[in-house]
């Protein structure tokens, strides 16, 4: 992971937040009224780049995300934090176009994956979503067998066409998700019969089975107990060797444990981006400080 700058003294960047300079003029935080992004939202050679993205719900009635510019680097974990309803999940769902499924949701701006605009008219969302996998807040395995849960994706994408290939992809995916030892003897049992933590790891296995390049995680541990959470956090740490991961979380401890960079959202604005340690120890924006010190949120 590489950022342009440590972020303690943010420089204006070309399209990030050109006028975000007022930070720390004399050791003071940016005031609450200033909603421009502070910190460095861009990185060199990003996996995904978001430029000036606005999202509206209900056919323009609700402005859910306002002019967000944010990059996702290669092999990093980017954490997104913020109070409920701040737009972090909405942002995440823009990245694999899951917002397409919501009636009246309009996305403007530019989002690229390896330089390719994913909202270009000719882009097919099916291969895109195979490339950018997603793990949801509530574990949602298919009401089918464990084997079928993992094998389904590779099969529909033609990655594993016969039974032995599928067996292989099931095994490697479950191993990588750390679930293999627990389920290898009953792969034909229903996936919905597993415990919550196991189900979530099954969902992660299902996601990585189609060999994505980016994994989006929408509060993957919010429905889990601390032990399952720890297992999944370890898993995220391992997965970042192969994938770029963007994770939305309500737990600041989790963000600090798993991520290299953190972005703080507030009411649709991207307020601050920086290396995780800096954001949690020396935030630049008053709102960020309010949040991480527990004044609200």
């Amino acid at each position, binding site marked *: 992971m590489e950022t342009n700058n440590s972020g303690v003294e943010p420089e204006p960047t070309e399209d990030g937040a050109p006028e975000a300079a007022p930070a720390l003029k004399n050791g003071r935080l940016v005031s609450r009224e200033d909603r421009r992004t502070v910190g460095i939202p861009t990185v060199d050679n990003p996996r995904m780049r978001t430029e000036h993205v606005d999202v509206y719900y209900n056919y323009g009635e609700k402005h859910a995300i306002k002019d967000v510019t944010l990059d996702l680097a290669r092999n990093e974990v980017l954490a997104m934090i913020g109070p409920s309803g701040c737009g972090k999940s909405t942002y995440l769902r823009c990245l*694999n176009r*899951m917002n397409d*499924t919501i*009636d009246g949701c309009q996305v403007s701006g530019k989002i690229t994956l390896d330089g390719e605009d994913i909202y270009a008219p000719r882009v097919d*969302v*099916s*291969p*895109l*979503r*195979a490339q950018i*996998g*997603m793990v*949801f807040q*509530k574990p*949602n*395995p*298919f*009401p089918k067998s464990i084997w079928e849960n993992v094998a*389904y*994706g590779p099969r*529909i*994408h033609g990655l594993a066409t016969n039974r032995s290939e599928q067996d292989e992809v099931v095994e490697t995916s479950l191993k990588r998700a750390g679930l293999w030892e627990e389920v290898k003897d009953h792969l034909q049992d*229903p996936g*919905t019969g597993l415990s919550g933590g196991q189900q979530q790891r099954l*969902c992660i296995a*299902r*996601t990585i*089975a*189609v060999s994505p390049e980016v994994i989006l995680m929408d509060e993957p541990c919010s429905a889990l107990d601390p032990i399952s959470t720890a297992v999944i956090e370890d898993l995220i740490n391992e997965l970042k060797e192969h994938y770029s991961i963007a994770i939305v979380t309500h737990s600041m401890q989790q963000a600090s444990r798993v991520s290299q960079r953190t972005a703080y959202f507030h009411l649709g604005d991207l307020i601050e981006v920086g290396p995780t340690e800096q954001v949690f120890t020396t935030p630049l924006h008053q709102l960020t400080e309010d949040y991480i010190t527990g004044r609200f949120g």
Partner: protein
Amino acid sequence: MNKPGQAANGGQRPIDIVKGGMVRRHRAERRFKIYGLSAIVLSLAFLSFLLISIVSQGYSAFQQTYIKLEINFDQNVLSGNLATANYQALVKKALYKLFPDVKGRGDKRHLAKLVSPGASFDLRKMVLADRHIIGTTREVWLPANDDVDMAVKGHYRRDVAESERRLTDKQLAWIDVLEHRQRLEKRFNVTFFTAGDSREPEQAGILGAAMGSFYTLIVTLVLSFPIGVAAAIYLEEFAPTNKWTDLIEVNINNLAAVPSIVFGLLGLAVFLNFFGLPRSAPLVGGLVLTLMTLPTIIIASRAALKSVPPSIREAALGIGSSKMQMVLNHVLPLAMPGMLTGTIIGMAQALGETAPLLMIGMVAFIVDIPAGFTDPATVLPVQIYLWADSPERAFVERTSAAIMVLLAFLIAMNLVAILLRKRFERRW
């Protein structure tokens, strides 16, 4: 602010107020339970009343009185064309032999009327099956006339004046004699299950109507299930939400409430008069019932699709399924039990439907058992309607018996619905 458990107002602790209200709450609960129970008891009482009255009236139709006669297959009568020979004469001769002291044409005619006119068909069938019986004398059980049947079953009042009865005093006496000689016997009424309709109750059967219902329902099922499910999937999963789809939705809901006879009129105008399809045919009946059943199936199928949790759809889309794959592989299997239940409810409705079929001529008197989709036919509920309209006393029990057959069909269909539900049901 009060501390927990401390006196609040008037020295009463909050928990005392709560407890004081419990009596009232429990009473309300008990009252509610009694309302529910009495509603169930009332409906069960009506249901059992209905069933008992139908069964008690109808069970005797499953038996039919037969008369034992020594038929002499006379070579003189059975010369020439065997298909058109005078078999009635054989029956008459056997009867006269049994009552040699009956003279006079009027009495003889009355005597001959004890046996069903259908008896000659039975004899013809025997002869055509085996020509060697010509010239021999055989003991044959022949169906009695419906009035004799009623008298034997005790449905006949003998205490009214002779002029107001269908059987004369003499006929009643002959019946008593036959009964005394053990020549009358109630046997299982095979005819009822193997014959089509007839003006003679003892020759009337339910098979024609049952086959008509069968063919009609096949047409209905084959058309309405795929069309209904496809429409529901399109409307629920693919169609954009705009004023057109709103309009379609409102219209579908309205169609479900349209009186069924209107569909019959539509069938008459469109299928018979415009397209020139055959009258009284199960094909047209099925088409009309399809129109009637479609809204039910579409509404039930949409409800079933709606009840599939959105998390399953997201999961499928999230790993890159196309919309079609999402629907076919994940949503449809979960919605199937609901769709099947809706379909079978719709089919049960169609099975019991009479009014629209009257409009397309399925109320005709049809003796032959239909052998295809375009043969003239009637259906079970119309058959019940026709028999209920007939004046003969013996049709009363046959009406009830036909209702029992219809109910048996409905129960069987519901059973299938439950089994399919169990088979397809999955948890998530």
